[in-house]
């Protein structure tokens, strides 16, 4: 049983534009409702429900605070709670009650049941006649288990096998798990491996009477699964009980706390929850305030490339920075500037020589993209506006989305939603945000990409407008990320807004600043394509 924090969806390279648009529309509906009389961010308050459910998706609207420091490194490893106990002792119930009592995301439940070994044909036959010992340490893939837990503890995105108890094999698609500040790892033999034990910060043994465990097992296997009673009791006395007494019960001495009576023991569970709360708080840190005071009077980094300030570029900036520009003109000229920006960014991608034949039968020594694939990742909300420009320039590009919002109370960025293409780790990633002030949101997004094994040197951050401070912050934390923009403003005001700036790009673009009366249809206008003569 896995608690999937994020949904990972595979977007086909050849999906049509209309499908993409539909995707964008459906995504917009997942966001908190927007009131034209209020700024969207003010909808986030302590009274807001933590969950937003729609269809098959669950999005936590209480976002994950920064889990890394100003160096961009993971601040503290995830806190791992190991839960051990006999079969049907209530480990999963205890785990779920802890998660329920915490009432926060970023707590991942990892079950050892996912790591059963794939059975051979001979072993399958034994299992069918209740003669295979699923309670023996040899039945588990400890090597994969240790590797997975270690990566998860380090903040990485991991894949979890899905075990099919009917075929005793693994399903083809594995589940992705990401974003753990606390990991609850449960299994009957979770204390059986020395390396696993070393990864745990707290070890809990759920000690339920053996006859109660048998009652539950009988109810589950016979009443719910329709198995034969004598078979269940035979298997219990032959495998389950001896394995418990030989491999599981002796590990009780390794635990830090023993919870008698399992899931009904609320005193013990509350005690554990209090401790986990403390651990969660230790893993939250303030990044933005640190960024705001760093990197004074330093030269801009070499990884920065600013679009040449031609009269055309300055002209576009004059229009979009003007507070009096109407929304439709704002959109039109922003799109033009985005296109120029994207074109410029693509020139930084690796190329390799390529010789072709022209229609005249002559050779032409050219070059082509030297990487494996290109993925665009937009930082929502405003970064999404740059997706059409990327699609127009870059054929077959895949798109991912990262929703990051500022917590009004703390001023910190929070990760709310993540949807990345499958197997992004070898791609070159164009990370898109409309503006960058302190760089806090962009840093969080880069951290997410690195956690998904994207190489730092293959990340290109593109933004219409950046503050010097943001450029420094990102370059300091991630010195190999390329930074592409059309202008760098000198400073920030007390509210950490860019000065002279452009205003709130997202509000101006989507008409959510309350000053626009444009209809909904205007937001869906097709991409305009101007050609200069």
């Amino acid at each position, binding site marked *: 049983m896995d608690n999937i924090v994020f949904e990972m969806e595979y977007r086909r390279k050849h999906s049509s534009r209309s499908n993409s648009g539909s995707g964008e529309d459906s995504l917009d509906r997942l966001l908190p409702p927007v009131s034209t009389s209020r700024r969207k961010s003010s909808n986030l308050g302590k009274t807001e429900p933590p969950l937003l459910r729609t269809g098959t998706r669950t999005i936590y609207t209480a976002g994950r605070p920064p889990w890394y420091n100003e160096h961009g490194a993971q601040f503290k490893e995830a806190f791992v709670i190991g839960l051990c106990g006999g079969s049907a002792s209530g480990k999963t119930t205890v785990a779920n009650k802890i998660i329920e009592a915490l009432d926060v995301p970023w707590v991942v439940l990892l079950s050892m049941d996912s790591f059963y070994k794939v059975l051979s044909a001979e072993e399958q036959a034994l299992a069918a006649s209740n003669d295979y010992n699923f309670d023996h340490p040899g039945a588990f893939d400890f090597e994969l288990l240790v590797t997975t837990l270690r990566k998860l503890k380090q903040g990485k995105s991991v894949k979890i096998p899905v075990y099919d108890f009917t075929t005793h094999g693994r399903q083809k698609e594995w589940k992705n798990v990401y974003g753990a500040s606390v990991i609850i790892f449960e299994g009957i033999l979770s204390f059986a491996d020395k390396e696993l034990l070393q990864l745990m910060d707290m070890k809990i043994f759920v000690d339920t009477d*053996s*006859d*109660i*465990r048998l009652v539950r097992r*009988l*109810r589950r296997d016979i009443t719910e699964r329709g198995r034969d*009673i004598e078979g269940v009791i035979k298997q219990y*006395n032959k495998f389950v009980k001896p394995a418990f007494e030989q491999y599981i019960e002796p590990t009780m001495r390794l635990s830090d706390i023993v919870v008698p009576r399992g899931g009904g023991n609320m005193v013990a569970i509350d005690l554990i929850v209090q401790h986990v709360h403390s651990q969660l708080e230790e893993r939250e840190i303030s990044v933005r305030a640190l960024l705001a005071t760093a990197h004074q009077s330093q030269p801009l980094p070499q990884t920065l490339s600013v679009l040449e300030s031609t009269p055309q570029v300055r002209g576009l900036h004059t229009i979009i920075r003007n507070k009096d520009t109407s929304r439709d003109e704002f959109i039109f000229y922003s799109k033009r500037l985005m296109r120029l920006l994207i074109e410029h960014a693509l020139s930084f991608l690796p190329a390799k020589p390529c010789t072709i034949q022209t229609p005249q039968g002559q050779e032409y020594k050219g070059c082509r993209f030297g990487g494996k694939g290109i993925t665009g990742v937009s930082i929502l909300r405003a970064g999404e506006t740059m997706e059409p420009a990327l699609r127009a320039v870059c054929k077959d590009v895949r798109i991912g989305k990262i929703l990051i919002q500022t917590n009004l109370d703390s001023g910190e960025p929070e990760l709310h939603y993540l949807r990345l293409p499958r197997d992004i780790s070898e791609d070159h990633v164009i990370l898109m945000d409309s503006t960058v002030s302190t760089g806090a949101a962009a840093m969080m997004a880069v951290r997410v990409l690195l956690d998904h094994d994207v190489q730092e040197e293959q990340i290109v951050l593109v933004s219409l407008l950046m503050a010097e401070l943001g450029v420094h912050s990102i370059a300091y934390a991630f010195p190999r990320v390329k930074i592409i923009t059309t202008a760098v403003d000198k400073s920030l005001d007390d509210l950490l807004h860019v000065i002279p700036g452009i205003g709130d790009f997202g509000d101006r673009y989507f008409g959510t600043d309350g000053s626009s009366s444009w209809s909904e249809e205007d937001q869906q206008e097709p991409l305009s394509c101007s050609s200069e003569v």
Partner: protein
Amino acid sequence: MNSSGLLCDNERPRHRPFLIGVSGGTASGKSTVCAKIMELLGQNKVDHHQRKVTIVSQDSFYRVLTPEQKAKALKGQYNFDHPDAFDTEFMCQTLKDIVEGKVVEVPTYDFVTHSRLPEKICVYPADVVLFEGILVFYTQEVRDMFHMKQFVDTDSDVRLSRRVLRDMNRGRDLEQILTQYTTFVKPAFEEFCLPTKKYADVIIPRGVDNMVAINLIVQHIQDILNGDICKWQRGSVNGHNHGRSLKRGVAEHGENPSGSSSNLTKRPLLEPSTRPH
């Protein structure tokens, strides 16, 4: 010495049996242990009148239920594991009669109708009486009558396995069996039966599978049936009343230099502490 021998012969009581109490949770194997002891002593094929070892079960002393209680019992909602389910006074009186060497009649309890059948079992005077049941150590008056107390300590999940299979064969529904177990049997065991384990002289883990312990007990009973019974009875000569006589008998027994006896009495100290339930 002649005078001493004469005195012993004159005052030797006739047919004063050695009482052994056998307790333990439901389906722990108390009856099986007793039956195995009888078998190993070769007593199971002897005619009742001539038997030197006999078994009495606490199950015979369930109270006759009222119509309301019967209705509950038929739905599995009556607690047969509570001390109040037993006719303790009748049980105590019967044991006293046995100790006095009388022929006693023990009722036969029908678990289908939850009442006593007209037929009764005659228990004839014997040298050794095994009295087995889940709560035979619960009442002090009964507990103090035993010269030896044994507790059959079987794991709770093993006991549940046996009970499930037994009750399934009686045509009962699994969910009813499990509910009755978790609602009545287990709580009553933990509240009334398990605490009496501390009174035991011998704890037999794993029940009938524990042949070392059973053989040890059989050997001890064999000694009682053979010559050693004189030593035990001689001790009671010095007493002047019934109660005191019993106590001295036990004390005398404890001082017995017999290796088997000595080993038996020391065994509880050597037992590893069992897991708390």
